[in-house]
């Protein structure tokens, strides 16, 4: 590709995108200073920026971050084990699959996070509630994707296995499971994302935990700039996790 067209197709959109963002920030700053936007509703971007180091040092952002990540890890671990096992089970026992697949699909689309008050009663205001919530939210998509991956194994590969007279266990471990692995990873990624969203959300709602709680606290203290800064921080973390997961998935899939 020629240099000008490279510029047009790669540099220009990037400039446009980030430029718009930068421009909006500067514009908002200007409008607030000019008094056109109420500074008690929208703090100045400059103030928000200054709040970052403050909350990092004062609010032990790092340990909060670690707490949220630990909760996410625990939930993901449970999701992986039960989600994949569930999908394998449903694949293995076709009758069970026929009976329950639509139920699982319905659960995947249902507002499961609304169960959190129930978990509050059962587990109290604790990390257990948060982890259980993450686990509950991430389970169904993982089960479904695992099932999908196993079922989508190309017929000819199953036939290859049969032609070599593989035992059912060999057939599963040497053919079905490896073939399904890419889709299973997609399921795990979805599960993790659902879990993380619910974890941070519930931390906010029950005012316990890591980053979610931080936002809630700062809001209740009417620390405007701090609240905005904390929200930005959480958004940043969420985006980073998401990008990381995509990279990981692509790295683990050299075969496609």
């Amino acid at each position: 590709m020629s240099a000008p067209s490279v510029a047009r197709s790669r540099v220009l959109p990037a400039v446009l995108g980030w430029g718009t963002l930068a421009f909006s920030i500067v514009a908002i700053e200007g409008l607030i200073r000019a008094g056109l936007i109420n500074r008690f509703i929208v703090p100045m971007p400059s103030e928000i920026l200054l709040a970052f180091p403050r909350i990092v040092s004062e609010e032990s952002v790092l340990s909060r971050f670690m707490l949220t990540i630990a909760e996410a890890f625990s939930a993901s671990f449970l999701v992986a084990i039960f989600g994949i096992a569930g999908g394998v089970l449903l694949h293995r026992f076709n009758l069970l699959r026929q009976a329950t697949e639509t139920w699982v699909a319905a659960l995947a689309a249902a507002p499961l996070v609304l169960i959190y008050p129930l978990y509050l009663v059962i587990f109290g205001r604790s990390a257990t509630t948060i982890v259980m919530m993450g686990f509950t939210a991430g389970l169904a998509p993982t089960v479904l994707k695992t099932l999908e991956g196993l079922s989508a194994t190309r017929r000819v590969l199953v036939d290859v296995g049969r032609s070599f007279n593989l035992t059912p266990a060999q057939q599963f471990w040497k053919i079905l499971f490896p073939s399904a692995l890419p889709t299973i990873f997609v399921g795990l990624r979805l599960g993790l994302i659902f879990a993380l969203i619910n974890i941070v959300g519930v931390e906010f709602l029950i005012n316990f935990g890591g980053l979610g709680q931080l936002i809630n606290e700062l809001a209740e203290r009417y620390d405007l700039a701090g609240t905005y800064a904390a929200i930005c921080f959480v958004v940043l973390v969420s985006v980073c996790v998401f990008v990381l997961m995509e990279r990981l998935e692509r790295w683990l899939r050299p075969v496609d």
Partner: protein
Amino acid sequence: MAAMSTPSQRLAASAEAASARPILVVDDIVKRFETPDGVLTAVDHVSFTVKPGEFVSLIGPSGCGKSTLFNVIGGLLDGYQGSVSVAGERLAGPHAAIGMIFQEESTFPWRTVIDNVAFPLELAGLSKAERYARARHFVELVGLDGFERRYPSQLSGGMRQRVSMARTLAASPKILLMDEPFAALDEQTRLLLGDKVLQIQQELKQTTLLITHNITEAVQLSDRVLVMTYRPGRLKREVAIELPRPRTSEIVSSEAFGRYVAQIWGDLREEASRGLRDDEKHKRASDHA
């Protein structure tokens, strides 16, 4: 799984083969299917034999039941009448002495070439070093040396079929059963791979049964060609191909070759046009329905 034999053993085996008992006996196979339109007879009393070291092709128009036969002989289909025996043993599921090569893409995309080829050796419990050593021999045999560590996605369609072939050969099957393995490839690649197959077959004295719809391929590679009728599939004719061996793809341009092709084409044309008329009849019936 048979162990790899030495060249002298193989020579002795081929001498035996000339007068030997057949290694594959397909006896009076009838296979019917239930469809929404009624009972379909795919294979109708088909019998034939294959001697050790022979290369036999089964050719027929689309819909003649040859893929059904492939699956029956391969042990992937049951519920048929008649029997299939390998070296005297009657078939009950996929037989260890039969190696299958499928029409579709069948390499394992998550394994490298060498891991694909070593698959049957892995199943047999060989150590990693041992099976890599043996697999490498077959990788070289199909002409893919240098590509051991590549993944199938990095190879062309023809190369992937060669990997499938090497994998099946690595199991040292007594009988190689192939279902239109080159169907998805272009004509030139087909001819060259045909050369490869000939070369391999000659080197290993491999008994081969090839299912195909391609006349050129059938005549180029085979000692005998069995022509099937359109559905219900029966054996219409058996043609002995008396072209000299060793053969290469150059044989395609010889006169004798042309005569064999014409003869078989005559038979197939008859069957193929029956097939076309049949399809038209069905289409008209379903349009009125």
